[in-house]
């Protein structure tokens, strides 16, 4: 269980990214974080594993205050928080297997990871995870030889290799095409329910969020302006989150996407018949 208690973040430049955020996320709950770019979604997620240091407030993971930890104990807690990144952030020049095994780094001493001597159980588990995300036969390829969707699957396997208690997911589909986006989203949600994992997912694509999330939190200028079920997310709420003009544009964009996809399907169908 994750509790965020009045967290704020002000950057060194004086920009206020987050103001007084308080949330509680139950075990197994998948939460979508929506909002325009610059609303502080990415900052909020990074405050939780302290890739960005929060300026004020507390964050409790299973009743342990992450903000108060020293560097060593912070590393121990980071092991329990899996993170999936926008643009995948795989180490491009390492093999797929090494990328998945890098999820175990926090559990092992330097010399073992330096010599690539991972415990048998870790290797077995890495193969199992690769099989789960459908990349068993790609283990010895270099990460930069994979397609975008495949890379994100490796990213998911890496996060799961940590045996996390919580998943942080930062715009997982931002650099993927619509079809792959839905596949990746479905995979993440399935995995969360398999392992009964709570997850916070930053997502700019509102229809995708509506389709997959159990709960949605809307951020605007570093504040929570909506917190509820997807069904409660009305036109007027979305207008407050995104501002009238942007919301209309986003809708239009989505319709265009659907249209062109429908068009493409129709043409393909016509070809086949």
């Amino acid at each position, binding site marked *: 269980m994750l509790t965020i208690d009045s967290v704020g973040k002000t950057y060194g430049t004086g920009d206020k990214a987050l103001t007084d955020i308080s949330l509680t996320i139950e075990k197994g709950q998948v939460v979508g974080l929506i909002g325009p770019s610059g609303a502080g979604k990415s900052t909020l997620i990074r405050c939780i*594993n302290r*890739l960005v240091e929060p300026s004020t407030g507390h964050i409790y993971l299973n009743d342990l205050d992450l903000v108060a930890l020293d560097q060593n104990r912070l*590393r*121990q*807690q*980071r*092991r329990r*928080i899996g*993170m999936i*990144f926008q*643009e995948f*952030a*795989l*180490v*491009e*020049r*390492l093999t797929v297997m*090494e990328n998945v095994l*890098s*999820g*175990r*780094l*926090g*559990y092992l001493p*330097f010399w073992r*990871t*330096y010599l690539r001597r991972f415990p048998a159980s870790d290797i077995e588990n890495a193969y199992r995870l690769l099989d789960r995300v459908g990349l068993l036969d790609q283990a010895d390829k270099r990460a930069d030889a994979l397609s975008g969707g495949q890379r994100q699957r490796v*990213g998911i396997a*890496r996060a799961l290799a*940590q045996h996390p208690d919580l998943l*942080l997911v930062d715009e997982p589909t931002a650099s993927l095409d619509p079809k792959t986006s839905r596949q990746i989203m479905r995979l993440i949600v399935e995995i969360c329910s398999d392992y009964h994992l709570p997850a916070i997912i930053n997502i700019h694509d509102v229809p995708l969020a509506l389709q997959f999330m159990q709960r949605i939190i809307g951020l605007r200028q570093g504040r929570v302006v909506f917190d509820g079920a997807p069904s409660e997310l009305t036109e007027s709420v979305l207008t407050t989150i995104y501002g009238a003009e942007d919301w209309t544009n986003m809708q239009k964009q989505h319709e265009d996407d659907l249209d062109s996809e429908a068009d493409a399907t129709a043409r393909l169908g016509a070809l086949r018949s």
Partner: protein
Amino acid sequence: MRLEDLNWQYRSRLQRLAIWFAWLLTVALFVWCWNLMTRDTIWLFVWDAPTQAADLGSRMMPPRWSYLPELMQPLWDTLNIATLGTLGGVILAVPVAFMAARNTTPSRLLLRPIALGIIVTSRSINSLIWALLLVAIIGPGLLAGIIAIALRSIGFIGKLLYEAIEEIDEKQVEAVRATGASGFQVMHYGIVPQILPAFFGITVFRWDINIRESTILGLVGAGGIGLKLQSSLNVLAWPQVTMILLLILLTVVASEWISAKVRSAII
């Protein structure tokens, strides 16, 4: 604006004046430097140079081929100076580069300036000068040459490597950090794979330059084929000099070829 007011000119009056003035200044500076430099030049020698050149050329030909076997041992020494010197330089340059790169330095205020200072010092001083110093300090021989090459290589490798470190993709590093990896693990999994190709490329490139430089270190007593060059010059044995120069030329061309091959294989 009326059409008659338009008057196209390549450059405005002021610009033309400035450019003209800059040229004048350059010419004046050149003439002044030239006069200062040639104050003590004995022009008689200069005018006599073509005859001297013809004379020298006739004395240098043909090369003394029988001298070749005697050059094999110094050539081997030269190769060792360059290779061991490069290895030593690499070992010293890697920590310096990590201290000098803005994103990996442990301390920006203390260690980074020190590392940058080491790089500038090493780069400013030619390996021949390093050799001169080291021969005076630890005595003539291969060791002085190896250390001279290593000291000069620190700056070159260190500079190119720290620039490569500063250009890495930070997202990959952040992702490794997020798994709870320790500082050394982040370096080894997040940074090292990204800079490895640059590292090998720089090392082989420097090895090629070091082969070149180690051929002449013997002139100041630091071992290798340069020693033979020095002793042949001292007794004015010009056919031997020609032979040595031919061998140096061959070595340099071969090392350049190897280095180009290896670099294209890595990248």
